[in-house]
């Protein structure tokens, strides 16, 4: 996989559509001559209307590099321009124009010695899921914790797969917090990520973890600041900020 040379727009074909939650679906895209990717990278998707009008958005690649296919997971925003098309209009067999893989800062490759802390807000979980899928695909034993903030139980993207991962070999430690509503009997966290929660969940600073935080800008900045206040070296923390709503 070369990261040199121009990044060309290519046409892929949607081979599968997977509903994940009421508002979120994954699209599996077959991209001819795909050169592969690293967990954490994204693609740019470009839509063109018949009169030439174009709209473009970035989507993190959800699939593991070992998968061979490119899948993205998109949250449909009601007032969005691109997401209601990708989640709602697109059918299996449709072609999509995309370029990638893009990114080199917010990436993780298994094999290093340091434990990993993943913090996700809503659809910010997508690149972190690629990292977890990669970790499973290469049977890595790197200790990893995921702290995942969602609005409600129904909105937890990849919920069943995360349950399976957490119950499988070399499991990641998955901790959910549901910030707006919780099912009856819920004994987990019910609030936004704060210092006390990180104190209970995150790796201690002497373990020198790598941290990846992804989600809406305010949530990412808050979590990063809290980790630094807890003694993490800022260079241990990589962030990807989506803006208020995570795309559109």
């Amino acid at each position, binding site marked *: 996989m070369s990261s040199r040379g121009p990044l060309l727009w290519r046409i892929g074909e949607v081979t599968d559509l997977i509903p994940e939650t009421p508002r979120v679906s994954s699209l599996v895209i077959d991209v001819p001559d795909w050169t592969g990717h690293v967990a954490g990278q994204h693609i740019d998707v470009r839509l*063109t209307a018949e009169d030439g009008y174009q709209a473009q958005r970035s989507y993190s690649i959800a699939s593991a590099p070992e998968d061979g296919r490119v899948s993205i997971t998109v949250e449909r925003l009601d007032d969005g*321009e691109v997401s209601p098309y990708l989640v709602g209009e697109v059918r299996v067999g*449709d072609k999509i124009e995309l370029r990638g893989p893009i990114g080199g800062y917010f990436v993780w490759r298994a094999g290093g010695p340091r434990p990993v802390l993943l913090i996700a807000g809503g659809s910010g979980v997508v690149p972190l899921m690629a990292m977890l899928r990669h970790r499973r695909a290469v049977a890595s034993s790197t200790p990893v914790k995921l702290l995942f903030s969602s609005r409600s139980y129904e909105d937890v993207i990849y919920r069943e797969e995360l349950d399976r991962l957490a119950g499988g070999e070399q499991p990641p430690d998955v901790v959910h917090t549901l910030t707006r509503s919780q099912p009856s009997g819920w004994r987990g966290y019910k609030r936004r990520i704060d210092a006390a929660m990180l104190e209970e969940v995150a790796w201690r600073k002497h373990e020198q973890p790598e941290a990846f935080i992804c989600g809406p800008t305010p949530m990412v900045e808050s979590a990063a600041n809290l980790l630094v206040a807890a003694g993490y070296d800022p260079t241990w923390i990589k962030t990807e900020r989506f803006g208020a709503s995570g795309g559109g």
Partner: protein
Amino acid sequence: MSFISRGFRGKRKQGADTSRVPPGQYVEQSFPVLSAGPTPRITTSEWTFVIEGEIDQPKRWTWAELMQLPSEEFTTDIHCVTKWTKLDTKWRGVSCDTLLEGVDTAAEYAMAFSYGGYTTNVPLQDLLDHKAWVAFEYDGQPLHPEHGGPARLLVPHLYLWKSAKWVRGLRLINEDQPGFWESNGYNMYGDPWREQRYWGD
């Protein structure tokens, strides 16, 4: 460009009176927020507006003084260089004619400058004769910071990047100079009806 995304239209609505839509624009129902940086948070108690530069004595107003000036409600169309046009937007503001009244200057241009550092250049003639305002209400409400409040310049006959948000003054200058976007590719004048978006247009 040959690839078309089946079934994609975007959010644009059809059916507007096309004589009001400059070339290359589409009509937008919402009011998109565009910004080159963090939103300044300026209280009306600290706000001032100044006209300075090629003028004997700078003229300065506090918010209270601005509110003493005659203001007017007006409805106008606005055109953003990012291609959206919004029709029939309602504002209240003080006309730049009022602010420039009695200003004795040989300067032919003005550089509008804002809290947060934004600048944009406008010929002085384009601020006169009922073509420009310092606007402080939108749609009957105090202008929200995300749209440039407490007050913004409004020059609706030019692309909206000339309507400096968070405006805090006009510097009168003898020769035209490029502001923030004009120095990085955008047209010095910016007439949407002649589609003057970029350098060389």
